[in-house]
């Protein structure tokens, strides 16, 4: 960086330095679309992607004290019966600011809040919503009850005081597969699994928008702390079949940009297949875990955001079981 500035003509260098300084000195809340860690403002800006349908796209990053955990996509649908919210974000503050963002668009009440799965960035904003509106798959409710506060504690460590006052609230209402009507929006709930042991997918049949939760990642490496790759790949086949039926126009992935279904499905499947094959090969080659961690990533995998960090985490999550299988196949006889 220093050498680049030195190489510039003096005047340009001066301008560059002034610009840099100005950016740093600007009052934190002033930049639209950028979180401010001085007053804990996520600067949430709902984007309309279809009729009545808004998405808040998070950053393709890890949790940091700078982004406050705003690394996740949340969404809401404004129906004649009231507002339906899909996921509530990583903290109480996020949930409260999501409510304010909704209130800037409609004065209708929030009547239903879905948590797609039990990972903390998808439900720790639940406190901001009325308890009877919260709903999730039974496996998700169990997971939040079991791990919710440990997750919150971990996010404190990663994101800091953005998390102030955040506590896990498990939804009381279990969601079953099937359809529910909200105004003219008929929502089809699909119970699948693979990213966790309970992953909720919602298809709004009125708009063709598919809310895929973390079964789909787009432009970012998938996370695997509770993943079962075989189930996840099967879930991707289900999503692909659904897309092939022509009823899906847009997908909202759990992380990454809203898109037509094909590319997020392709990317997520490619990553998971590569990860599984790489770890199995490593186990069959007799690699020690630190040698597996040191393997280089191929360019198409390395091109995904945070892939280096997620690959390392995934080795920790998945390699011990794969290695055990590879060693047990040969076994030791007494």
């Amino acid at each position, binding site marked *: 960086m220093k050498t680049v500035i030195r190489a510039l003509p003096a005047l340009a260098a001066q301008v560059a330095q002034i610009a840099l300084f100005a950016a740093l000195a600007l009052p934190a809340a002033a930049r639209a679309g950028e979180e401010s860690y001085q007053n804990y403002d996520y600067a949430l800006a709902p984007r309309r992607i279809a009729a009545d349908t808004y998405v808040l796209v998070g950053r393709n990053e890890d949790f940091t004290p700078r982004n406050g955990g705003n690394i996740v996509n949340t969404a809401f649908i404004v129906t004649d019966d009231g507002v339906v919210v899909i996921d509530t974000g990583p903290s109480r503050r996020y949930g409260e600011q999501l409510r304010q963002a909704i209130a800037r668009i409609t004065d209708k009440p929030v009547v239903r809040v879905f948590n797609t799965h039990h990972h903390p960035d998808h439900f720790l904003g639940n406190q901001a919503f009325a308890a009877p509106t919260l709903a999730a798959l039974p496996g998700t409710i169990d997971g939040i009850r079991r791990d919710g506060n440990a997750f919150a504690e*971990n996010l404190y*460590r990663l994101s800091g005081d953005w998390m102030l006052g955040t506590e896990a609230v498990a939804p009381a209402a279990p969601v079953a597969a099937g359809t529910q009507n909200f105004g003219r929006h008929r929502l089809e709930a699909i119970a699948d699994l693979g990213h966790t042991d309970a992953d909720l997918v919602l298809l709004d049949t009125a708009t063709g928008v598919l809310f895929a939760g973390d079964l789909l990642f787009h432009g970012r490496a998938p996370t695997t702390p509770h993943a079962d790759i075989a189930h996840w790949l099967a879930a991707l086949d289900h999503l692909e079949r659904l897309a092939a039926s022509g009823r899906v126009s847009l997908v909202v992935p759990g992380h990454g940009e809203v898109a037509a279904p094909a590319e997020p499905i392709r990317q997520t499947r490619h990553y998971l297949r590569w990860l599984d094959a790489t770890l199995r090969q490593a186990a069959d*080659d*007799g690699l*020690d*875990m*630190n*040698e597996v*961690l*040191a393997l280089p990533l191929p360019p198409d995998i390395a091109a995904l955001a945070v892939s280096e960090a997620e690959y*390392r*985490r995934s080795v*920790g*999550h998945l390699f*011990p079981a794969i*290695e*055990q299988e*590879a*060693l*047990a*196949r*040969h*076994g*030791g*006889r*007494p």
Partner: protein
Amino acid sequence: MRKTLRAAGALLLLAPWLALAAPAAKPPAAPDPLDSARWEDMRRQLFADAPVAFDARIKVSAPSMAENPLNVPITVDATALARDLPGSVREILVFADFNPIVQILRFYPGQATPFLGFRVKLQQSTPLRAAVRGDDGVWRVGGAWVNTTGGGCTAPSVGSASPEWQRRLGEVSGRLFARATDGGQGQERVRLRIVHPMDTGLVGGIPAFFIQELVLRDGQGRDLMRIEPNEPVSENPVFTVDLAGNDTRRIQVSGRDNNGNLIQAWLE
């Protein structure tokens, strides 16, 4: 401000001791490359008056940020030191300055390459170190910092909550892998996993229960190497060992835990 005062106080307390220590004949100890507040304690407790030197030829690999404090992979590699200084690697002590149980294991490479991979439970972020003793009596030390969210030593083993391990206790699965080395010579890698809860004794009502000795022998019953694990080695431990030469067809695994249960298996 308070910090400054406390630091000043500490200096005052130390001053007379420093004055007394100054004329001693010993050369000043080399500074700890990992800059750990516990290093001096470690040196005194583990090595007493034996000579100690930091040596960059001893490599300790571990992820700088450990995802799971119950299962932190460590690889100790002293092959460069053994090549440069024959006879310098007889015993390897692996330890963690800030673990409630500091000493993780001792490894006597014998006929094996001075290389060992395994996993540990860590209670908090800590330096992980390998101290290597040679024929000259010198302890040479290498290490790395590992950051972790912690709690690994005071979490109950999965096995302690399940009746499964009682049926499978001491069960060995493993495999031999033929490998080529940089020098072109063949090498046999042994990877093995043993079913054992490896309870630390730091969880209420669950006493320490861990494998204390593990020996690999060749087909003729000759010792190849020995490991003496302690409580911090992870549950259902997995070890990676490299044997020089690729003519090993069968390996005998034997060992025992601190309750006298025996481990016996053949790998081929």
